[in-house]
């Protein structure tokens, strides 16, 4: 117990210091973890209504935010890690702000976004009651090495889960995990309605394994299917069109098919967690009100013009982002760093097609790999006006040259953090991790 108190105090101190320095959401967690390795299981031991882990390659942050919003709309006190710092230490870091000195979290439920490798580390310390597994795509292959391996990590997470698992029915890497969950653990699915099944290839990875005797499951009455009405409006359908439950129609603040699929995943999971308490109207209201997480289509007003920050981190995500945002005419900047959190290998840029930028060109490439990005664009015949590796210099030049039009910056994780820090200081943005909600 003394050790835990020491861990809380030490972690809180590190958290205060690192916040003063403006960033570093994992550092205080590292401090607490060092002082008390049992910290996590202790802190979460008293959370009565479930410990939910959200994992997968793309959409973790958005889906977690939506799921938490739906649960809170049902009057639950939910702990979450809203910073997009999806490593175990990041979870501890965000926990430290809310912990009393006895080290036990006071919440009805915990919903945690964790990347694939850290989800397993977490599960080794605390077995989740529920897990939501979104998708498997090529992401930062230098960290996870291979897609097969990533799928294995998620399958192990499902094996560790004690009560319920929600799987993506359209991603065969994920669907196959159904065979790995324990007897007695409920399995639900989310996915897209047949009417838009033809858009799936642009969203996910090819499964090139041998075809074995795998037959995909048929969605049942507790499985949520996305049925879009138009570009913005959609509903989530459980069961029959006539007799089943509809959530929606509704519009999200965040644009694009990927966000709708995330909302479908969040709704399906919330419905499983809440059971009979689930109320479609509350869920709709919560989803309508959710703002995009920082850097996921967040809009900053700069001298009267909107500047969008769009996080890109792998081919599937970048392709979806270009499809979602590519059609509106804006000035574009692309910032690519290659730190650990960005993925150190930039090869993946060659698995993205930049055709949609060809007509208007790209005003600026920046980041440590600014020249590699410009070179990539050359091979797609996309004109590039300027190349400036220094992010702040590039941002200044980009803003100065495009004062009279909407702007968009596609950026990798650490590039986004740096750019947002500069923008936050100038335009009074909410602090990262303390979004206005």
């Amino acid at each position, binding site marked *: 117990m003394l050790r835990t108190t020491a861990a809380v105090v030490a972690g809180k101190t590190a958290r205060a210091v690192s916040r003063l320095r403006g960033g570093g959401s994992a550092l205080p967690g590292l401090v607490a973890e060092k002082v008390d390795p049992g910290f996590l299981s202790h802190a979460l031991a008293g959370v009565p209504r479930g410990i939910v882990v959200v994992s997968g390659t793309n959409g973790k942050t958005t889906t977690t935010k939506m799921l938490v919003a739906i649960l809170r709309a049902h009057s639950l006190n939910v702990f979450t890690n809203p910073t997009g710092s999806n490593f175990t230490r990041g979870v501890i870091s965000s926990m430290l702000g809310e912990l009393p000195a006895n080290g036990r979290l006071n919440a009805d439920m915990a919903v945690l976004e964790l990347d694939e490798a850290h989800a397993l580390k977490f599960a080794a310390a605390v077995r989740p009651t529920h897990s939501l597994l979104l998708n498997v795509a090529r992401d930062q292959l230098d960290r996870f090495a291979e897609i097969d391996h990533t799928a294995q990590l998620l399958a192990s997470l499902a094996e560790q889960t004690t009560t319920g698992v929600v799987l993506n029915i359209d991603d065969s890497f994920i669907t196959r995990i159904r065979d790995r969950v324990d007897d007695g653990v409920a399995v639900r699915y989310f996915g897209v309605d047949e009417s838009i099944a033809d858009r799936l290839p642009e969203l996910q990875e090819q499964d090139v394994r041998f075809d074995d005797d795998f037959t995909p499951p048929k969605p049942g009455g507790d499985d949520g299917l996305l049925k879009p009405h138009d570009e913005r409006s959609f509903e989530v359908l459980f069961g029959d069109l006539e007799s089943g439950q509809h959530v929606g129609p509704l519009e999200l603040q965040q644009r694009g098919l990927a966000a709708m699929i995330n909302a479908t995943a969040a709704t399906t999971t919330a419905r499983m967690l809440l059971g009979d308490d689930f109320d479609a109207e509350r869920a709709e209201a919560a989803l309508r009100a959710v703002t995009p997480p920082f850097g996921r289509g967040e809009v900053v007003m700069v001298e009267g013009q909107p500047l969008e920050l769009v996080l890109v981190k792998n081919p599937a995500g970048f392709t979806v982002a270009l499809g979602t945002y590519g059609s509106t005419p804006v000035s574009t900047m692309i910032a690519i760093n290659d730190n650990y959190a960005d993925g150190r290998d930039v090869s993946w840029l060659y698995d993205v097609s930049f055709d949609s930028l060809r007509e208007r060109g790209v005003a600026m490439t920046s980041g440590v790999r600014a020249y590699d990005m410009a*070179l990539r664009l050359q091979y797609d015949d996309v004109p590039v006006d300027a190349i400036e590796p220094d992010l702040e210099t590039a941002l200044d030049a980009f803003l100065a040259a495009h004062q009279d039009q909407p702007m968009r910056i596609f950026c990798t994780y650490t590039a986004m953090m740096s750019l947002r820090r500069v923008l936050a200081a100038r335009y009074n943005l909410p602090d990262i991790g303390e979004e206005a909600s």
Partner: protein
Amino acid sequence: MSDLPLQDIDVPIPGEPEGSARVPTAERAGKGAINLVHLYPREMSIYGDLGNTRCLAARIRRHGYSPVVHQHHPGGEFPAEPHLLVGGGGQDSGQVRVEADLEKIADRLRELAEGGTPMLMICGMYQLFGNAFITVEGQRLPGLGILDVTTQGNAKRMIGPVVLDTDFGEVVGYENHSGSTTLGAGQRAFGSVRSGYGNNGTDRTEGARIHNVVGSYLHGPILPANPALADALIGLAAEKATGRPFEPVSQDDAVADQARLRQVRRLVK
């Protein structure tokens, strides 16, 4: 999922214009048509390796030739007259899928290699072009034996940015492999390591070369930032295709040179 058999589905190569698999008429072929074959693009091009094919096709056009981009899939018919072959890295499941087909075309590939056809084999395909891959459990999986190299499976992965000195100048890229490769006696390396692991992390060699075959672990993809290597392969292919010496057009590679030089400066102390 489509019902088409796999071998009938080509993979989209980002940037490549539609119809680049078509054979041009004589008057539209420029200085000549060059048959560029990507081996197993579906199974074996995980780390942006399609970018090598895009780079070669684009530069073949810039040099005034006409590329015919052929994707060879498992079970598909191997093209009659390839002038330039490219292969990439894959997951274990991808490698398993290509093994049977590779065995089927093995003699043809050996014959082409000995005849001087230029080839660039990256990562997984580099290993398969060697004598054998020995798994962590000690199982010996035979390779094509075109390159005199042997790869030992490892628990530890060698991951990170790489800088090499090669006959094509400084070469930069990114490696990510668990196999540890040893060159046979007399087998020439592709480059010597100035930063990174290379073949095995101990002897400072990277990749292997024989005839006009280059094997390497370097992704990146390797060619865009190292245009001297790309043009060397294209030059050899152009000679194969036309029977005449390569007639290059001078290229503006300023951005590629900056991308490469900056990596060298960051990594070589």
